[in-house]
């Protein structure tokens, strides 16, 4: 009887450990798994060239299924994710940011804000993204947008973070050039995210 109980306990613990570790390492828990979606990192924007590919390893395939289902393979689109500002602090709805960058070498690009549940923030502001067709390129060759919970009202392009809590940004590049695909570390230009200030602290 004692041996049977020990075996049952061992098997139960093994099941919990096996399933739990798979859920964690594949990104199916709120905790970010180590390493996944980080095989490419450019200016804190991270990606994985195996998205959508038959060659994706089981962890990447399960991760994409949870956090980016129906993503396109790299020949058509590449995806870069970022959840921190230029100082490494988590992106939060109670902070204001300027996001700006040069124009990437791709047919089309966009930056979209997603809430912690991986969907668009539920705020009714209809200001979830900026894309190549709407971005205004300044004299310095860069586009800019204000990223905060309320419309800045200063004529700048606004991306709303209202009701987003801690959020992330997805940088889409469609039909990127061969150079961007093969050597993103040198060929890809990525947006900067400059924190202006957070509620309850002085703007800097």
């Amino acid at each position, binding site marked *: 009887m004692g041996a049977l109980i020990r075996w049952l306990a061992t098997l139960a613990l093994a099941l919990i450990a096996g399933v739990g570790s798979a859920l964690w390492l594949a990104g199916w828990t709120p905790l970010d798994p180590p390493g996944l979606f980080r095989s490419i990192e450019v200016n804190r924007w991270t990606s994985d060239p195996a998205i*959508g590919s038959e060659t994706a390893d089981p962890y990447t395939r399960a991760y994409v299924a949870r956090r980016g289902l129906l993503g396109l393979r790299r020949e058509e689109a590449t995806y870069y994710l970022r959840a921190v500002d230029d100082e490494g602090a988590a992106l939060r709805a109670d902070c204001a940011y300027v996001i700006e960058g040069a124009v990437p070498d791709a047919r089309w690009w966009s930056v979209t804000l997603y809430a912690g549940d991986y969907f668009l923030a539920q705020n009714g502001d209809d200001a979830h993204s900026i894309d190549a067709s709407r971005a205004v390129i300044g004299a310095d060759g860069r586009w800019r947008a204000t990223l905060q919970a309320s419309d800045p009202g200063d004529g700048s392009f606004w991306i709303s973070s209202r009701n987003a809590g801690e959020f992330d940004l997805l940088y889409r590049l469609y039909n990127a050039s061969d150079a961007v695909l093969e050597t993103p570390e040198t060929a890809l230009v990525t947006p900067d995210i400059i924190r202006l200030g957070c509620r309850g602290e002085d703007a800097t």
Partner: protein
Amino acid sequence: MIRYLLGFLLVAVSAHTATLWYLPRLAMNTAMSRLEASGPANQWIHVPPTDETSRRVVRPSPDLLYSVCLLDLSDGPVRIRAADWGDYMSLSLFAANTDNVFARNETRAGGDIEIEVSAGQGGDVGLGSDRGIALIRRLAPDDARIARADTVRRENDICEAVSER
């Protein structure tokens, strides 16, 4: 003690591997079940413009207009046409394990994208599974382009079983 340790490792590794195999299929099955509730298989569902109420599939783009077809190839191949509309468009196919087995845009296709999809090796594309998802993305970040893309897709996109032709 060694027996318990070996038993633990054997079951833990097996459960770990099985879970990793199952999770993508679970996600696709969930997405396909949601599509099934919206209409029959092998027929385009022209999704309304994306907003914060779009919650069937994670990370939708508000700048893209989606059309989606739940593929059921168990009775034979399916014919698909994604109609050219003069701006960016892609047709992509996803197998039951989430693999993006096919992706082509209108530039590479030289206009309309037309293919025949089968579960196995026949047709232009073999999906590798009986069920899957076909998806058209059209770049439409403003009302004018949404209206134009919507007209074209409703008039000219095709997703139908070949046996129905």
